[in-house]
């Protein structure tokens, strides 16, 4: 190896590669250079599983033309020797916006919301930018490229991060020398998606994650329909979706739950998404395993929190603190789950952390082979470039990195990064350094010369008899110049040398007196070995995950037990009424026996002396456990569903259990006359989002009336309807259209085959499908309502379309039209005593429940409030206070009656043999203010136990304290820290907009 020869030459063969071969030239003779490069001597890692000791790689025209251990050296080959080095395929980044400028946001205020799309000739939603191609705007950025190469990357897949459908990406190699013609490996490499709206338009829809999910689905349906030639118009965006359908789909997400949501959509549509993940996939690894998407895993492991301020430390949640401890093991967990993944640097603030963090992942258990695959072969495969990149094999691009040790060793440095056969020096080879201490001999005088940092900002010190002489130095292109003064600091000597041997510097120059001199300097001893700067971070023991992964989570999930509640007062909600001193036997999640039980074999006995046992509380109207509640982008949002956005980590689920709640309907908010579809859940703390769903429950949808849908209480005047008159017409319009939609499909489906093939297929519309379900009596309405006029109106509209409204929720003036409600057959789910918060509740009275009940309406009390829902037993008691409802009937307001309204009373809502064992053990009369829920059981498993919850408070404190200690240790060990952040729990109500 001849280091000096190419030491500062970044590119060797510049002139040979500047023009495409079929281009004419006017700058000289057009010659063909058939130069070849041979790299030899290093350990060549062909791919994660194959390596060659002393391998040889032959490169021509930017490609590897041969790899092996005994390649015959062509005569025209330039040979590079890398003895003792390692050579790997360079890394591939699939989630970058390299070379693409970010756009500035355009926001529309609440006063002037933009509801319609601006683009014409494209899809109806501006955030569907499938027609966009990143290569149109791509501008190669040499500065960024250099940073990427320094981190080991050779190829990046780059896209403009704008919109829900983002169009296509461009695959480029980080080739500084040649133009886009060479470096663009693929102009439409992948299509990109996200849940985020674009900055290119202020169009409000979708205003929520569930809206974004519905939109993505509708686009897929529309694209299929469009592809088959059913559209009357041209739609450039849909056309692009169709044309790009064979490309890999890369989906960006930015939080844990969205990862699973994206995977779910992919699963539904049979698309293998490549999902940019978040970093805590270990929290939901089983869910992901099931959906099995490909992942792009970020390595922005959190820093330890700076725990110096005791006030701020208290605000940190255990979940946040555990994240610091557990995140580095995320890649390992993903690998162990058998999920195919590649690494991405896209979430890193500083790309220099990329390789160190991957090493950290390896330290925390990821195998080096997997790690290397996730950097090379897997991303190559995911982007359909297997054989082209990611491996050092014959025919592949000559993209490789040269390191001074195994790549995942802490001290290893990337020394070179070759892209398409172009060499880039990352770390000058240490042989070139002239750092050290020298005896400098000039004219029989002896000086001491100390040189440091010769590879970067060189400095030199010259002393004579321990007198420091003022010295200046430069070291450029192999030339060292030294200037130093004499002890009087009035005369200067100037030395120069072209370095050939770093142990013996030789040169000439002018001495203090101006005389020409020769000098030499012998290295005496190398200065102390540079201290490895990598701090030895303490390897943390990974703390066990809980479900959910927060303070009150379970290490192992509760399971159904064989339990006998004995000697307890049982509120059956059945004809038997209240049984004193009775027993209830639970087996396999069901109630096996009620009454006097002597044969409860194998049962664990829970003594209920002095206590009361009831069926679990059912909240007909809740907004907890969801990531979004309102899709306010349109006045109808029947296409969205809360089932898409269940958040099983919400602490309010556990708080609800503590109040005896065992079933809830999570309703869409009241932003629109036609809201979204609801989810009925059981708060099975620790289950996945889908695991919370009440199995086989009838589907529901939220409707709303009054001030919220008119947008009366904030200054918004742009959306129809603004009056109750308009509200009626929204319903009429949608029901009518749904009727016509259904007829169109029926007509199409019933056409004879011959004609059918010539007919245009009607457009599949998720929103209309939902409304047809309502018309067909397959989906049920729970309608937010306040004043009597609108309640009456909706019943009349429904009557016209042959629909029965299932439930009026809130229904605060239900008492004024209770007779009409009874006739229509609609139930009322109301507040016990809320009023006076807006104009339409001026006549809301706490006697409402009692009056409706007296007229034969099925009455429930609901919460609409994460605080109230954990004490609905107290709210039920208000029916006794206000209007004198009997205690047994009042209790049904929060148990059996909401079960009826949700059509689940055959399974829950009372204590009856064969029903689900959803039970609550109360310390006292269940409606007494002094009563506390001691145990809450769902399907025979105890999900809440007062004693456990109390003990858990101590456990949380203990674990937090341990983590604080660990963080302090890490900080003292020099690890970087971050400022404490407070995780806020968003409380949703009907009116909460995302």
């Amino acid at each position, binding site marked *: 190896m001849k280091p000096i020869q190419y030491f500062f030459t970044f590119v060797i063969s510049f002139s040979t590669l500047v023009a495409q071969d079929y281009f004419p030239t006017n700058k000289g003779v057009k010659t063909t250079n058939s130069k070849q490069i041979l790299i030899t001597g290093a350990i060549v890692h062909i791919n994660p599983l194959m390596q060659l000791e002393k391998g040889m790689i032959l490169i021509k025209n930017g490609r590897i033309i041969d790899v092996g251990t005994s390649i015959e050296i062509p005569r025209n080959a330039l040979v590079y020797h890398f003895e003792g080095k390692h050579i790997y395929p360079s890394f591939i980044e699939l989630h970058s916006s390299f070379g693409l400028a970010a756009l500035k946001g355009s926001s529309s205020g609440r006063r002037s919301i933009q509801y319609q799309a601006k683009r014409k000739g494209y899809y109806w939603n501006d955030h569907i930018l499938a027609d966009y191609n990143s290569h149109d705007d791509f501008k190669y950025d040499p500065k960024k490229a250099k940073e990427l190469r320094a981190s080991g990357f050779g190829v990046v897949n780059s896209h403009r991060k704008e919109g829900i459908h983002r169009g296509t990406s461009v695959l480029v190699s980080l080739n500084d020398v040649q133009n886009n013609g060479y470096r663009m490996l693929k102009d439409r490499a992948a299509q990109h998606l996200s849940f985020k709206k674009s900055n290119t338009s202020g169009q409000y829809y979708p205003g929520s994650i569930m809206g974004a999910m519905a939109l993505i689905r509708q686009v897929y349906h529309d694209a299929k329909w469009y592809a088959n030639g059913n559209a009357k118009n041209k739609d450039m965006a849909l056309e692009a979706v169709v044309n790009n359908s064979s490309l890999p789909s890369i989906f960006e997400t930015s939080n844990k739950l969205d990862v699973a949501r994206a995977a779910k959509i992919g699963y539904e549509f049979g698309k293998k998404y490549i999902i940019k993940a978040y970093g805590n996939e270990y929290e939901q690894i089983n869910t992901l395993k099931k959906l099995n998407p490909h992942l792009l895993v970020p390595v922005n492991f959190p820093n330890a929190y700076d725990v110096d301020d005791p006030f701020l430390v208290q605000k940190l949640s255990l979940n946040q603190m555990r994240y610091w401890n557990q995140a580095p093991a995320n890649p390992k967990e993903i690998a162990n789950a058998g999920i195919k993944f590649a690494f991405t640097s896209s979430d890193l603030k500083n790309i220099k952390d990329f390789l160190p963090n991957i090493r950290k992942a390896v330290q925390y258990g990821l195998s080096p082979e997997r790690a290397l695959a996730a950097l090379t072969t897997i991303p190559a495969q995911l982007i359909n470039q297997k054989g082209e990149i990611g491996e050092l094999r014959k025919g592949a691009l000559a993209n490789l990195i040269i390191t001074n040790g195994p790549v995942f060793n802490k001290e290893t440095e990337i020394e070179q990064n070759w892209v398409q056969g172009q060499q880039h020096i990352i770390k000058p080879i240490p042989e070139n350094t002239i750092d050290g201490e020298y005896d400098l001999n000039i004219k029989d005088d002896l000086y001491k010369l100390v040189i440091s940092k010769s590879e970067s900002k060189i400095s030199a010190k010259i002393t004579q008899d321990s007198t420091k002489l003022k010295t200046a130095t430069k070291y450029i292109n192999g030339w060292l110049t030294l200037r130093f003064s004499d002890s009087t600091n009035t005369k200067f000597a100037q030395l120069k040398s072209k370095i050939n041997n770093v142990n013996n510097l030789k040169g000439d120059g002018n001495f203090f007196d101006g005389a020409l001199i020769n000098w030499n300097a012998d290295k005496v001893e190398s200065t102390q070995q540079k201290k490895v700067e990598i701090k030895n971070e303490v390897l943390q023991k990974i703390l066990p995950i809980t479900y959910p992964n927060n303070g009150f989570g379970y290490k192992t999930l509760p399971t159904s037990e064989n339990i006998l509640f004995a000697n307890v007062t049982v509120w059956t909600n059945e004809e038997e009424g209240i049984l004193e001193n009775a027993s209830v036997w639970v087996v396999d999640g069901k109630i096996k026996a009620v009454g006097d039980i002597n044969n409860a074999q194998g049962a664990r006995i829970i003594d209920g002396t002095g206590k009361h046992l009831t069926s679990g509380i059912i909240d007909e109207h809740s907004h907890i456990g969801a990531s979004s509640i309102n899709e306010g982008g349109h006045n109808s949002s029947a296409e969205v569903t809360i089932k898409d956005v269940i958040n099983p980590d919400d602490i309010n689920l556990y708080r609800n259990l503590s109040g005896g709640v065992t079933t809830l309907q999570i309703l869409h908010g009241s932003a629109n006359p036609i809201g979204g579809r609801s989810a009925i859940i059981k708060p099975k703390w620790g289950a996945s989002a889908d695991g919370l769903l009440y199995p086989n429950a009838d589907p529901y949808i939220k409707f709303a009336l009054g001030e919220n849908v008119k947008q009366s209480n904030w200054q918004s005047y742009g959306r129809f309807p603004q009056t109750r008159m308009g509200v009626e017409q929204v319903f009429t319009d949608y029901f009518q259209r749904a009727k016509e939609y259904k007829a169109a499909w029926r007509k199409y489906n019933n056409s004879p085959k011959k004609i059918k093939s010539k007919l245009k297929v009607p457009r599949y519309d998720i929103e209309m499908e939902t409304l047809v379900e309502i018309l067909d009596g397959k989906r049920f309405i729970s309608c937010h309502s306040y004043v009597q006029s609108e309640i009456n109106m909706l019943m009349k509209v429904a009557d016209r379309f042959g629909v029965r409204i299932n439930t009026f929720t809130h229904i605060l003036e239900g008492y004024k039209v209770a007779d009409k409600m009874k006739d229509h057959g609609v139930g009322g789910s109301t507040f016990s005593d809320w009023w006076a918060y807006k104009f339409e509740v001026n006549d809301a009275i706490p006697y409402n429940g009692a009056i409706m009940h*007296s007229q034969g309406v099925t009455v429930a009390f609901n919460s609409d409030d994460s605080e109230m829902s954990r004490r609905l037993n107290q709210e039920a008691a208000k029916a006794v206070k206000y209007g004198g409802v009997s205690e047994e009937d009042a209790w049904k307001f929060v148990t059996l009656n909401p079960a009826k309204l949700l059509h689940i009373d055959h399974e829950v809502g009372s204590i009856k043999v064969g029903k689900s064992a959803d039970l609550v053990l109360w310390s006292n009369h269940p409606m007494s203010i002094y009563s506390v829920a001691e145990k809450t059981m769902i399907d025979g498993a105890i999900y809440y136990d007062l004693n456990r919850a109390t003990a858990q408070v101590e456990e949380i404190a203990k674990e937090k304290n341990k983590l604080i200690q660990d963080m302090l240790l890490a900080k003292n060990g020099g690890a970087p820290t971050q400022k404490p952040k407070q995780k806020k729990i968003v409380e949703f109500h009907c009116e909460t907009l995302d």
Partner: protein
Amino acid sequence: MKNYIYILLLLLSCTKGFTQQTPAANQNKSILILGATAHIGDGSLIENCALGIRAGKIVEITTSDLVKNQYDKTINAKGQHLYPGFIAANATVGMVEIDAIRPTNDLNEIGEYLPHIRTIIAYNAESKVVESLRPNGILSAQVVPTRGVICGSSSIVQLDAWNWEDAALSIDEGLHINWPRAYLSSRRSRTTDLKYNQKSYEEKIKSLGEFLKESLVYNQTQSKTKHLPFAAMKDVFSGNQTVYIHADNQREIVDAIQFLKEHKVKKIVLVGGKEAHLITNFLKEYDIPVIVSRPHRLPTQEDQDIKLPFKMAKILMDAGLTITIDVSGRMERMNTRNLPFYAGTFAAYGVPKEKAVELITLNAAKILGVEERLGSLTVGKDATLFLSLGDALDMRTNQLTHAFIGGKNISLETHQTELWKRYMEKYSRK
């Protein structure tokens, strides 16, 4: 503007027809309430009690067999429970009628230093929200201002009045200060940087300090020109006006109380105190009463004890602090009528039942400085009390049969009971 007028018209048209219950006539006759279980308000109980009312005052309290005086009228209250009227502290009833409708809002004044602002003159004695408190046993309330750093003066009102003068029991008894926030985080996003807001926190404290110093000096000297805010601070320094300091964070509470002591504020009451349980020793050392946040709220953090809001009263009482209940919070005005159930909830989590009654009777009266007239069934105090068919802290049994304010037998009807009766009547016609 057009909409504005519509809203006003709507309001007018709606309130026409249902007005507030007519205040009760003066009670000229003396009354004996006989046989009830009397919850005295000081933590004690008298079974089979006899309580005499004359000229608006309680003149006798004993057991039924030991009645000494003659009365014009006797109420047989056997099996019933007798309580001193409950007192709602830190309330805003009568200041806003309908939350969402701005014309009905008289609470949100602008400005930072507003000691001259007084709630009493805007208090709506005919509010439908106010009358809805009475059937639940709440017979008086502290009506407080809420905006600014120094928010203004609160007053104590009784809840059966023709107008605010008639309602006033104690005018401008307290000055309310919202202590600056030491820790700030932005509202919208779900995870926020939390940091000690050093600069603005210290500046705000400094400026509050200057205001207090200047007003102290102003009130010690004779100034030719009147400075309304400074002049309004006079009673704070004389000790005639209590300073209610609103703070939740433990650091803020400590800073606030030491600060007020340094500035020669004599009477200090802490309001809110969601983190007061962390500094009970400090509060005890300074002997600071606490108007503690209502239990019907969520824990402030994800992994906080899920029952902490319910346990606060017990924790503070065990530490020897004098406390009552703060009714403020989400939808606080209409929820004020649930005050008895807030006390009941505290009782469910460790406070003995009679002590829970004391929280919203004698303790409240002491903290609000009206214990000479209100807060317990004690001879010489106002006959502001009620009879309930059962335990008034429990929803099932909180059923009032009689309520007296200053000896006057007040109506227990409301706009809401009238609608109830009206529609039951409608359905009975069929």
